[in-house]
């Protein structure tokens, strides 16, 4: 019996590449097939019953999504909110990042962990309080209000990325600049800025993606004038028109995938895992 098991095990080991590829390919299907279905559903016409592919292709659903779903307006809202959230988060991140990266702070590790807490705790638990506060302050259904709600999740990312960026800035380069006679302003513009710019951009991309995709906090603070893409997609799911919803989803997901490509090229995925969110 044990001999048979061993022979069986050896057989499996010899076929390990086949087994490995089977696992990888099934996983790829598992992960990517849902997107393929969304994409096909968004351009398919008369796709009913037992068919693998839609019989006819059409762009009608996109037209419907754009006209009925009011996508241009929604896209504008999403972008405006995203830009405000990025500006506020970056301002917060530059200050705090410089403090954490380059200055002595008593209890630095603990303080940083505390400031990053909003990433770890499910946002619904504090979104409730944010919404209640914003109702009182009449910030609900304003672009600024929704953006401010996003800052609670976006700012920790900015702080995380920027403190790492500023920490890497070499003291000796700054000294060299001042030795060569550069004043504070000159050395900032010509030395510091070019060195930290990639980090600042990365932080802006991160925070923008988070604002762009943020659903929980938006759902609790949006109104008729501040519908964003995720909220619009959610409302469309409720309406039950899968084709139109799929078209909206495609319009929404393309930027995310572009950003994935950028992140993969510029940052290590393990670092991405450090900040997560159950959304």
């Amino acid at each position, binding site marked *: 019996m044990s001999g048979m098991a061993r022979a069986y095990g050896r057989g499996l080991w010899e076929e390990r590449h086949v087994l490995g590829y089977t696992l*990888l390919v099934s996983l790829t299907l598992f992960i990517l097939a*849902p997107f393929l279905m969304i994409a096909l559903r968004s351009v398919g016409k008369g796709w009913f019953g037992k068919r693998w592919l839609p019989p006819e292709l059409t762009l009608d659903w996109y037209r419907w999504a754009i006209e009925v779903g009011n996508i241009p307006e929604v896209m504008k809202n999403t972008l405006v909110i995203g830009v405000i959230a990025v500006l506020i988060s970056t301002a917060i991140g530059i200050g705090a990042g410089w403090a954490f990266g380059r200055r002595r702070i008593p209890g630095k590790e603990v303080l940083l962990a505390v400031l990053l807490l909003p990433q770890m705790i499910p946002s619904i638990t504090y979104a409730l309080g944010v919404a209640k506060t914003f109702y009182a302050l009449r910030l609900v259904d304003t672009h600024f209000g929704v953006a401010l709600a996003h800052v609670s999740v976006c700012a920790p990312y900015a702080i995380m990325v920027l403190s790492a960026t500023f920490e890497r800035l070499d003291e000796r380069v700054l000294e060299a600049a001042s030795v060569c006679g550069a004043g504070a302003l000159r050395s900032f513009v010509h030395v510091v800025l070019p060195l930290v710019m990639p980090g600042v951009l990365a932080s802006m991309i991160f925070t923008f993606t988070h604002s762009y995709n943020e659903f929980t906090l938006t759902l609790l603070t949006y109104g008729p004038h501040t519908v964003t893409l995720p909220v619009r997609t959610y409302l469309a799911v409720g309406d039950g028109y899968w084709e139109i919803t799929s078209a909206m989803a495609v319009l929404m*997901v393309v930027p995310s995938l572009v950003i994935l490509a950028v992140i993969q090229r510029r940052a290590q995925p393990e670092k991405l895992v450090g900040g997560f969110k159950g959304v």
Partner: protein
Amino acid sequence: MSPRRRGVTLRLGPHAVTLCLLLPALVAFVGLFCYPMLLTAVLSFRPEGAEAGWTLTNYAAFLTDPYGRRTMLLTLGLALGATAASVLLSVPLALVLREKLRGHRFFRLVILVPLVVPGLIAALGLLLFWGPRGWFNLAVTQWLPGVERPIGVNYTIHGLVLFYVWLYFPYTCVTTLAALESLDRGIEEAGEVVGATRWQVLRYIVLPLVKPGILAGSVLTFMAAFGAFSVPLIAGGNYRTLAVEIYKEISVPIPARWSAASAIAVVMGTMQVVALATYMRLVRRMGAR
């Protein structure tokens, strides 16, 4: 008595400068996180709709209701189930990816996809794919003998676990892979030299060494799954997790039941902290062994 009046320009000490730099972050943290949390906690003790007064009825109503208890169990069970399944998927996957087969870069990228795609869109795609007219059921009914009717996945418990795994296994997988790749291959070779079979090398050398990585990743998966909101909201059907229940309390009844929602939010936050603390202790004990 300000410094300026004494003819001295204002000079900030190093700590004051640090504080100024940190100020925006602290203001945002307090205003957008601490205060809302505190407000939620206070609201949860207020009678429904009242501005003053203290009561425990909101908690009593939720905790004694069998439906409330079922919601808590469901949320915890889904998170634990998804975490266990993610570990079972991630370990073999990481072992295969470590071998750097041809095209492994592409597969590594694929694993990251669930991390960057909005949960909402993921839920939509998963519902389409696993639905009665989706490719999964087409394949099953056409190719598997004996299966005539579509298999129900959407809006079931096992379906939700499956969706959670899709969304949150990358946390476990990426950390497991990182742990495996930092492992010295020489140790495994040493095991083989002294006559251990491949299975024994895996069981007694590799797995114990990467266990901290697996456990750290599974904590992330667990936390994310416990706090999941958009996926159970869309794909949960009749199964409502705590997060969904909170939202329903303020969106379905008119007027909104803020105090009831706040009480559930406090219960959820407490459960998350307790679960995390227990998990960490367990992890430490297992790591020590």
